[in-house]
């Protein structure tokens, strides 16, 4: 109904606004997963971390009335989840993919358990910056009302991209991810580096969760995530472990996710649930298009189990 003023232009505008809104958690989770995978380990449990982060952020924001404290708390518990994953995977014969699935179920269960009392109360929301104040059209104002975490995520992507090439930490991360033996020869302990990388990945994924509960949709319930944590893993492969690629891919996913609601807002209601499936179909198509049975993927960390 709102889109009547600017006609069909409301659809691309709504998709743009939706892409930014929906992509923010993807950016954080995929950056976290990219760091973890760069170190040669895969963490499929980020879905659990994301939901637990969402619960923690919401609960802390309800109690302290500060959404930013909520984000910090979520980062702390996310790092803890990452440390548990990294610690367990250190042992021989432990499968990091299976541990990820188990950590996902554990994180979801614990989040639903501890989050039960916080379904009702309302938490303060994270702020947004009104870039659209110059316009008279409410649609443009709404579309350009960009949340702070999106800007933080985009900035982080740039920083990570630069740091992975130009800093000592970035080099260490890539060496460990490409060859454990080479890392040992350099005097690095691959397990320790991977522990830190997984912890950082968990903390970032939890920020994605905090965004879900504190900005959009901005409430805590058991259906808060629709698989963002898992799609992010596929997205990282598509983005070739490149942080900037991750944010662009996240935007693409966000756009796909926003297509259904945008069409609905101009009166196209048929097949709403099919549009809901668009991000999943897109992920799958992208995975099929970018994978190959014979050669390993360009840019893939050598020690990563998922691409073998």
């Amino acid at each position, binding site marked *: 109904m709102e889109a009547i003023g600017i006609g069909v232009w409301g659809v691309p505008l709504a998709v743009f606004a939706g892409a930014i809104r929906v992509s923010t958690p993807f950016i954080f989770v995929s950056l976290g997963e990219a760091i973890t995978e760069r170190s040669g380990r895969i963490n499929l449990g980020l879905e659990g971390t994301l939901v637990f982060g969402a619960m923690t952020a919401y609960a802390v924001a309800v109690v302290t009335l500060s959404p930013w404290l909520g984000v910090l708390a979520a980062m702390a518990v996310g790092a803890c989840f990452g440390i548990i994953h990294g610690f367990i995977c250190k042992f021989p014969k432990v499968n990091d993919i299976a541990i990820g699935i188990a950590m996902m179920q*554990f994180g979801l269960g614990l989040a*639903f358990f501890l989050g039960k009392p916080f379904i009702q109360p309302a938490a303060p929301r994270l702020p947004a910056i009104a870039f659209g104040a110059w316009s008279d059209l409410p649609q443009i104002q709404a579309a350009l009302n960009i949340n702070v975490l999106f800007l933080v995520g985009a900035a982080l992507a740039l920083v990570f991209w630069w740091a992975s090439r130009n800093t000592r930490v970035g080099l260490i991360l890539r060496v460990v991810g490409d060859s454990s033996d080479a890392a040992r020869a350099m005097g690095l302990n691959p397990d320790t580096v991977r522990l830190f990388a997984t912890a950082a990945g968990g903390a970032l994924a939890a920020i994605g969760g905090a965004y879900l509960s504190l900005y959009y949709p901005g409430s805590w319930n058991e259906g808060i995530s629709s698989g963002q944590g898992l799609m992010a893993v596929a997205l990282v492969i598509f983005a070739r472990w490149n942080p900037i690629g991750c944010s662009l891919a996240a935007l693409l996913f966000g756009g796909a996710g926003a297509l259904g609601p945008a069409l609905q807002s101009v009166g196209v209601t048929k097949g709403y*649930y099919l549009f809901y499936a668009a991000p999943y179909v897109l992920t799958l198509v992208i995975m099929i298009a970018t994978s190959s049975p014979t050669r390993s993927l360009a840019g893939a960390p050598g020690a990563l189990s998922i691409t073998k």
Partner: protein
Amino acid sequence: MTVEANSHTLPRLDGRVGSLRPSLEWLARRAEPLAITLFAILIGLALFSIFIALIGKSPIQLFELIYAGGFGTWFSVQNSLSRAAPLLLTALCVALPARLGLVVIGAEGAVVLGGLAAAAIALPLVGSAPPLLVWLIMALAAMLVGAVWIGLSGFLRHYRGVNETIASLLLAYIAIALLNHLIEGPLRDPASLNKPSTAPLPPDYMLGSIPGMDVHWGLVIGVIACTLSWVLIEATSFGFAARIAGGNVRAAQIQGLPVGRLIVGFTALAGAFGGLAGMIEVAAVQGSANASLAAGYGYTGILVAFLARHNPLAIIPVAVLLGGLDASGGLIQRRMGLPDATMLVLQGTLFVVILFCETFYGRCKIFNPDLWKRSA
């Protein structure tokens, strides 16, 4: 731990020294998975007890309630068995590909689409065909759809190099979206107001209970499926080839084994079992296809399969155990005021600990007869 690969340097004497020794060695090797799994369950329960104690509830009361709600009375045993029935099939959906080294976690998708296909194909037949024939057609349709859905993950894995774990899960999300689309739209029974569903099956087309019990036939079907799968893996050349391919793909390819066909075949069979679970949910429990099909049986099945170490026969007791945990959830909620997610926490804890304990395999001397001789 310090002894490595002793078996290569010492000649193996199995079968030649007396008759007692080999059977002891056989027992020791067989006891390892059981002992480590039981150890892991104990550790998991201990951690869970600490958690429950920390939030100020009594773990002892909790375990008493789990026993009472899951296995204490004939009524609760029947309840547990009913809940175990779909888990038998969804666990097979994870365990069969796992024997080939694939981690497929999208059983939920096969359940959902299997149930949907069964409900959709039954509706035009109801009234004109006898129930037995309708059930057969429903089961075939469900298994076919499930086989295509999970088989697709295997196909993409082998022929396109797509990671099967993520692909199967994405397919599960797509399946749930398809279910929602069809039961809200084209297949919706106008009479279903609050909960969109397909038109219900008439009562005489519902799969009844096993005589003498209040448990539906799904349990029998599940047990048969597990037994057949065990025979397939342990006693046929197809299963043997799959085990080789699961152990070492390169070796299997050099041997000329059809790895691609094995992967597609096993994932398709796994999906067929998942689809069958959906058909049973529709024909024995729900009576129609609706959102309750995505009740998480596919996800609990992952835990069952890993607990059973992907052994189809071991799936049977593990599924009953987890069915019991599930059945006692309501009692714990009412008596102790704990949220329904308590059982999810317990399952997650067990899952993590079980996988962690994989690291103990081959480390305990008592289970490794090759190390006995050294100390003797």
